[in-house]
């Protein structure tokens, strides 16, 4: 095979990986602050994908235009989920939280199944087959836009946490729960806000993925798993780690699909996960926790 093909596949993998990274960023932010693993993460993303698909087929609204509104809708959903259901569970054992979110995931998948049926749906935008040519490199336009949007959203989130008062307050909650309570922060509200931000991230990622893949209600669990793999590879709670992990997994999947059979590509992601867990359990960019 000529070298060009590898390069093209690799670039495609990296671009898809950035969108995966944004999805995983949502999970990472939630875990980093609230210390709850969102087992309904992929399912929430599927909800966003269906909103994007429906708006496009009903009103011809371009998903890239609807990115912010759909992310906001998911954010509101995430706030309600944390404030209504998860807040009472933050001090309960992991398996309790797990069951709660699995129940949420089961409900989401099956509500989607009832509303949209089991058939695959997709978005056929006018630029679906456009591509940019850079020397020997041919880049899908949809993937490039999606990856760019993922970077913009991730940068916005990073700035929010780093430079705003609210972001600093949330980081304070993550660092020291009791300390945050002592200085008078409304921790429950901030937790809900964090969950909202994480959900908005996964919502934005979902909208962009709707451009790249076909949507079915059963996609959820596979993406939840993918998000886990990515955040643990990159480092749970680390924002650049999530993006790096996304790129790594996207690249691995793309190259494994080319070199071996596409159906075996997820084995390589799991292999990476196992290696990372064994030799650097805190993830590539994660901080060592005692």
């Amino acid at each position, binding site marked *: 095979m000529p070298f060009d093909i590898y390069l093209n596949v690799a670039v495609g993998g990296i671009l898809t990986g950035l969108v995966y990274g944004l999805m995983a960023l949502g999970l990472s932010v939630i875990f980093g602050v609230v210390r709850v693993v969102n087992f309904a993460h992929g399912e929430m993303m599927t909800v966003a994908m269906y909103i994007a698909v429906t708006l496009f087929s009903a009103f011809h609204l371009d998903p890239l235009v609807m990115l912010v509104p759909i992310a906001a809708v998911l954010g509101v959903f995430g706030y309600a989920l944390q404030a209504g259901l998860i807040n009472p569970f933050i001090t309960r054992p992991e398996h309790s939280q797990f069951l709660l979110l699995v129940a949420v995931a089961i409900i989401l998948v099956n509500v989607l199944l009832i509303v949209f049926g089991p058939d695959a749906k997709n978005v056929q935008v006018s630029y679906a087959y456009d591509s940019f040519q850079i020397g020997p490199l041919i880049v899908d336009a949809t993937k490039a836009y999606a990856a760019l949007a993922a970077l913009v959203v991730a940068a916005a989130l990073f700035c929010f946490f780093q430079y705003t008062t609210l972001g600093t307050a949330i980081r304070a909650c993550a660092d020291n729960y009791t300390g945050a309570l002592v200085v008078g922060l409304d921790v429950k509200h901030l937790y809900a806000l964090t969950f909202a931000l994480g959900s908005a991230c996964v919502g934005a990622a979902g909208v962009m993925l709707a451009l790249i893949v076909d949507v079915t209600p059963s996609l959820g669990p596979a993406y939840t*798993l993918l998000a886990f793999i990515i955040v643990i590879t990159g480092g749970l709670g680390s924002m650049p780690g999530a993006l790096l992990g996304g790129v790594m997994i996207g690249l691995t999947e793309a190259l494994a699909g080319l070199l071996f059979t596409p159906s075996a590509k997820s084995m390589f992601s799991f292999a990476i996960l196992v290696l990372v867990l064994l*030799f650097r359990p805190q993830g590539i960019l994660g901080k060592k926790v005692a």
Partner: protein
Amino acid sequence: MLGRLTEGLSARTLILLTLLLAVLLAAPFFASDYLLTVLILILYFAYVGQAWNIMMGFAGHLSLGHALYVGLGAYTAAALYVHYGIGPWIGLLVAIPIAALAGAFIGYLAFRFKVGGVYFAILTIAFAEFARVGFDHLAWTKGSSGLFLPVAQYSKNDLWHLRGQPVMFYYVLLVAVVAAFIGCRALLQSRIGYFWLAIREDEEAARSAGIDTFRYKMIAVVISAAMTSFAGVIYAFYYNNLFPEQVFHISRSIEIILGPIVGGVGTLFGPILGAFVLTGLAESLTEGLHAIGIDIPGAKQVFYGICLLFVIMALPDGVWPWVKRRLGLSERAP
């Protein structure tokens, strides 16, 4: 022997246990074919739930990949039967070491590097998923097109080859559930059991008290994996077909652990009660929705999810501790 078995149980507990066992022993004589298949499912989940509970409920490590051990047991016994005509009980002798080795491998890697909590849970998912994709490409077990056991109409039950009617599987599983219950109770009351609880409650403290935590965590994962593989053998010979996409799928692992969590993690009766509650709930939802004419795919699961939400919100410690108080079986006053 019987004296040791019933040691520390109140008369009331003994009477209720005997009654329950009598009802379960007699059930096939009264149950319809449909009810019998539901009961088989309940016993299956009660058994694997008990096995999982050793990992989580006793030793405090959340495994989300128990489908791996079910699948290894199922595939080992089924492949030996299909390829060489080796019966399931001999197959079990091969399946148990394989599953135990897999458990030991995962445990060794995780516990050596002190992988715990959420990380351990996700490591177990990763191995189960790895096996799922791997078996999809394994020609010896027919890959993704599925491994089928020869099926025929059986006039009599052949226990040695596990070929026969559902009622045979019912009794085999009932024996397994009772044995697992007694075995787990004995484990809990042994030295190992106390070490496990110490590790579950506070691993650092357990280590400083001189407990070799690595060793006892390894024992937990090996026993749990070995026990689970037996359920896999029964699964293979009861359903007669195996697909990696179904056997190793993460939703299988989740099904296994819902029972004990709903029933009560770390309790001996929780897995059994949880299996009854959840399977009963799922089946009555199917029947109920059918009766009122709702036949939309997914509707049942939505109600199931909502019920799960209510259970975990109302009874965070599980149903069994609550039922135990109602039945007046608690040592302490309610």
